[in-house]
């Protein structure tokens, strides 16, 4: 009998439960990381539920016509901003494993008048896209949620075209400096 030594199912269930329960809108996170000009044309639904940890899009090399994968799109703020940059000749695949998030992203894209955002349901450890099909992978505060981070990065490499770019924002903590009561709290795994 195989054993899940990484507790992947438990971690996934915890993350799924924590994020699905988030319903209270707040612009605080978006306003911390994005300028008023950047947020100007982003629908409130995406702004009010932003949970990213930085503004990596300012560093990402997105050209008109690029195909982009937003890994863990959440409510879609980065997918919307990336879709505007790649333009109508480009495409953004907005990947998330939570249908609730994909629904918000789809509604936000529709409100923004964007037809180049395609929500796709899936796991970041098994990205449902073909090899070498993406120019830029973006991700904001999501890779840390995976119990198999090396697998996630391998999947990003698989779907990127040669010369394609990965641009990721995420958090690191120095575990030995934080008490176990904090490190083992569900929010530490989900947040």
């Amino acid at each position, binding site marked *: 009998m195989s054993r899940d030594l990484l507790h992947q199912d438990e971690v996934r269930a915890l993350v799924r439960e924590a994020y699905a329960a988030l319903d209270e809108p707040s612009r605080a996170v978006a306003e911390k990381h994005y300028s008023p000009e950047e947020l100007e044309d982003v629908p409130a639904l995406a702004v009010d539920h932003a949970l990213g940890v930085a503004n990596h899009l300012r560093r990402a090399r997105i050209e008109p016509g690029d195909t982009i994968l937003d890994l863990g799109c959440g409510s879609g703020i980065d997918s919307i901003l990336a879709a505007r940059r790649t333009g109508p000749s480009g495409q953004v695949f907005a990947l998330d494993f939570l249908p609730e998030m994909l629904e918000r992203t789809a509604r936000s894209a529709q409100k923004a008048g964007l037809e180049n955002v395609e929500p796709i349901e899936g796991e970041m450890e098994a990205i449902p896209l073909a090899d070498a099909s993406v120019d830029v992978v973006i991700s904001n505060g999501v890779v840390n949620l995976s119990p198999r981070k090396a697998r996630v990065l391998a999947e990003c490499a698989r779907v990127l075209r040669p010369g394609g770019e990965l641009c990721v924002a995420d*958090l690191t*903590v120095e575990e030995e400096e934080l008490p176990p009561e904090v490190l083992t709290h569900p929010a530490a795994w989900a947040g």
Partner: protein
Amino acid sequence: MGIDDCALYPLFTDELLSTMRRLIPAERLDRLAVSAIFRARRHGA
């Protein structure tokens, strides 16, 4: 990223923030995590 930044995120409940303030030394509360951006390019272009 300090505890005030954490408080912006709904996953950090009042109960958790209170626990963190109680257990983590005050001088550490303003640097609990590091937010980093990294870029990598797939070879072969």
